[in-house]
């Protein structure tokens, strides 16, 4: 880990001023940042510790029925907030399927949005990576890329965004509240992360010094609570990043789907919201054919970026299953293995 200056501002405006300095990076829990610093992937000049900023660690259930999640709210606290979990069960399920209990106790909501890709070539500083060194090339292309992107990738970067939390949040129209040197703004989470294009080093729309202060869910998001699931396929039963994941949320009118929300995880450099697939379900009955049709639409533009063609069909199937589970209804209690295909089937002592 390189040497750095450490400061701990006590107000957001102080933090933003310090964060705008060249080489400055915000430190919250550090569960991703310290990992990156230890690997030499990131070498910040200054760490601006935001953990003591007042007011950012609150979950505010708003009068209009929405919720504002302070950027410093810990993953575990959010998932276990009874009102939050009741109204946004797929988000709680996604949170509890991520990382480990220890990491969830530390990691923050804002940090979750800003976690970096798990691409091994990004982490390996001896490999060429356009994210680390714009113009250097991408060693993931032609390398081990079994788990890489199938949507939205470019010849400059085929990495994926690893977040679970962001997947249902994107599906439910979350909005990111930002404060920066130029003031405050709010942008939809769906537009927060950037696809790689020609500039994979620009991962989000944040400008220098901008700080996530909160993430907001609109009141409409809670309307999906009875039919909202997150499903995550992994290479071990727990404590693993997704191979592919999906959030599905349905709002019914009678026995017809009035509105569907779908998002996919670990398929692209952003949480992936296939709105065209959602549209196919409006007014449809919740049956296998409709779900398959939606899944086909969701993956219509998918193409392998390497040895990962299997992820395309896998993603289709996960969309179908997530929709099927959502249609069946949110379980009364969080499954023992959140988001797992094996959720709830084991009873062995």
């Amino acid at each position, binding site marked *: 880990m390189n*040497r750095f200056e450490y400061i701990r501002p006590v107000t957001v405006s102080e933090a933003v001023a310090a964060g705008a300095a060249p080489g400055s990076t915000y430190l919250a829990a550090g569960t991703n940042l310290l990992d990156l610093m230890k690997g030499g992937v990131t070498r910040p000049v200054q760490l601006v510790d935001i953990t003591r900023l007042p007011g950012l660690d609150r979950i505010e259930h708003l009068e209009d029925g929405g919720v504002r999640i302070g950027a410093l709210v810990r993953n575990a606290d959010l998932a276990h907030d009874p009102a939050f979990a009741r109204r946004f069960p797929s988000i709680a399920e996604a949170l509890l399927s991520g990382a480990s209990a220890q990491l969830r106790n530390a990691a923050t909501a804002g940090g979750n949005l800003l976690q970096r890709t798990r691409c*091994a070539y990004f982490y390996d500083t*001896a490999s060429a990576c356009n994210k680390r060194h714009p113009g250097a090339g991408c*060693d993931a292309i032609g390398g081990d890329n079994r788990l890489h992107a199938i949507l939205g990738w470019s010849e400059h970067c085929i990495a994926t965004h690893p977040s679970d939390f962001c997947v249902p949040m994107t599906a439910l129209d979350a909005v990111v509240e930002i404060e920066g040197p130029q003031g405050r703004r709010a942008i939809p989470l769906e537009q927060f992360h950037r696809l790689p294009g020609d500039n994979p080093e620009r991962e989000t729309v944040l400008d220098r010094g901008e700080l996530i202060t909160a993430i907001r869910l609109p009141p409409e998001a809670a309307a999906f609570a009875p039919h909202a699931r997150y499903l995550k396929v992994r290479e071990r039963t727990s*404590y693993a990043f997704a191979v592919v994941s999906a959030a599905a949320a349905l709002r019914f009118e009678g026995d017809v789907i009035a509105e569907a929300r779908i998002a996919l995880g670990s398929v692209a450099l952003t949480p992936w919201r296939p709105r065209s697939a959602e549209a196919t379900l409006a007014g449809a009955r919740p049956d296998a054919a409709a779900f398959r049709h939606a899944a086909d639409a969701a993956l219509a533009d998918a193409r392998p970026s390497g040895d990962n063609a*299997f992820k395309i069909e*896998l993603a289709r199937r996960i969309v179908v299953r997530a929709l099927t589970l959502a249609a069946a209804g949110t379980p009364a209690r969080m499954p023992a293995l959140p988001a797992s*295909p094996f959720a709830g*089937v*084991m009873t062995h002592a």
Partner: protein
Amino acid sequence: MPEIALTQAPAHVRMGSSIGQPLTRREGVLKTTGAARYAADHHPPGMAYAALAVSSIARGRVVALDVAAAKDHPGVIAVMTPANAPKLALDPDAKLHPFMFRLDVLQNDKVRYANQPIAVVVADTLEAATEGAALLAPRYETEPARVGLDGHERFAPQAVGAGRPAEESHGDVEAGLASASRRIETVYETPGQYHNAMEPHAIVAAWDGDTLTIDTPSQGMAFAQDRIAGLFGIEPTAVHIRSPFLGGGFGSKGLISGPQILGIMAARLVGRPVKLVLQRAQMYGPVGHRAPTRQTMRLGADDQGRLTALSHHVHTATSAFDDFVEPAATVSHALYASPAIRTSHEAVRIDTGTPLFMRAPGEAPGSAALESAIDEMAHASGMDPLRFRLANYADVEPISGNPFSSKALRQCYEQGAERFGWSRRPLAPRQMRDEAGMLVGWGMGTATFPAIMFEGHARAVLRRDGTGIVELGAHDMGQGAWTALAQIAADSLGLDLGRIEFRSGTSDLPDAGIAGGSAHTATAGMAIHGAGADVIARLADLATGDSRSPLFGAGNAGVIARGGRLFRRDNEAASESYADILSRAGRDVIEGHGSGRVDPAAQAAYAMHAHGAVFAEVKVDPDFGQVRVTRLVGAFAAGTIVNPHMVRSQYLGGMIWGVSFALHEQAVTDRRSGRVMNANLADYHVPVNADVPSIEAILVEERDIHVNALGIKGVGEIGVTGTAGAIANAVWHATGVRVRSFPITLDRLIEP
């Protein structure tokens, strides 16, 4: 050297111990309170920190290091490179015996594999040393890396594993195949795997003149002592190794590694004690691994389902500069009866750290392939896999024709199958689903591991107060040696466990042999048994030769030692306490010595193996291919069980390694650079708690009067064997898809 306390206060130690009792671990309190000191927990006064810089290329040489940048970092004391590294008394590439592996310890600028050490930075703090190493920014002259099993010249190795011939056979395999009514030929692949003990290799080294004291985890202190002494040109007795606790070894700590030597060199360079701990990523190179294999199985069977031929060919890899060839095929000589069996190995040289013994070396990948192939042959024969195995039950060891010293495999099959409910298994695959719609499959595998012994020595002392000391340089890497060996020690002296002091874990004690090959309890145990017997014999001589003793004249009848007293064998009413015997003889102590080693006559006459049967249930998501092992039952027979508690844990741990082998672990090497791209515990998967929902080990009774006087085989590795195959077979039974490439990841199970 200060005394090492291996166990907690006697308050916790249960009394009345002897072989066979399920005692809890004697070091349990130390390990659960954080008081057990592992190597990296030491911090002698004046200690500096060393950090390795490792190569990012797999082949070539280092042409530049920014030593100045590292030295400029505050706190950096020294940068050790080939330019200033202490010269060694012995070329680290010299190979004086097959177990002397070549080491990369900064004697030149060559790079032979990725993650090879290329410099060491020593600093006052860990942070400074680590960043100093990062600042070296090496530049290389790079040669193309040789990666993978293909595209390189294959050669027939001189020997495989620990010296077994690369090719062995009996009978005529081609004739057997020609006469078979059914034949299969299948190819199985297993990946490179890394031991990944939870404790990274670590050393704290302190020189005092030409005397060296080190804290380092070792599965073989005497070997390490000799290796270090040779490299530094000092006497082995000048090397004091303390290794009371290992945070896992699994073979990777069997021989001292290059990085540990570098820690000693760094201490010499800076004239201070030095601590060097590998980073997790640095364990994927210089400290050994299991090489990948490609195994071709050719089996023939008659119309009764009896094997007519078995051919097992292994294609594997070793390093470009040293030899260790995974002996994956040899398991095929020990397990199933066949009139003709042929095994062969060939290898390629690639740019990798040298492979090494890794838990069940050979047997783990070999058994995965063999058990899969047997399952495929059973299916081809239309037979239940257990019935097929019983039809090919070997009553003598196939390769030698020797009878087994003991073999309770039938009982393992019976008890395991009964407990698992195997008889309800449908013959055809893809017949079972659970209530959630998951595919369910049942598979089995036979477990086997040779019962071997190394050579070990022990010393026992009986004191005038009737208490005893037993000491030897044994190793406890989690298998429970401190408990099991103490139990043997107590019995050997005829004392309760609370009356003996058991000392171990340092190289200053008699060499107990290497802790590997599942041989440590037998080897060290027999040494202890011999030392205790020696003491008792001397004590008996004192008593039976003394007319004042109630045991006078019992020399011919003999005596029995029990509970701190000697009894006349033919009249137990006549007895005398140890204390009284010693006191009357005016002796403060009696010392005895013992050795453990195999009996060559028994070895020539008998085949010695432990056996077991493993039954697995898996559930597979029909759409996603995600697999979970929902039930594992293993039944094992391994001779005398010294401590059922510890043995059960060894079996369970081994079976979990089988789960890992079947479903999880694999090193992913970039085919261009030769670097392991998942050199971390997030991407190199080993099972987590949720991967093992139901697991059970049955200890099948077995008495072996040939293997050694205590009847001990070995239990550390057998659990790995059989299990990987059982799971692969269960996955096939669940899905109808036969995956012949390990690990069985979900992409291989997704049907388009």
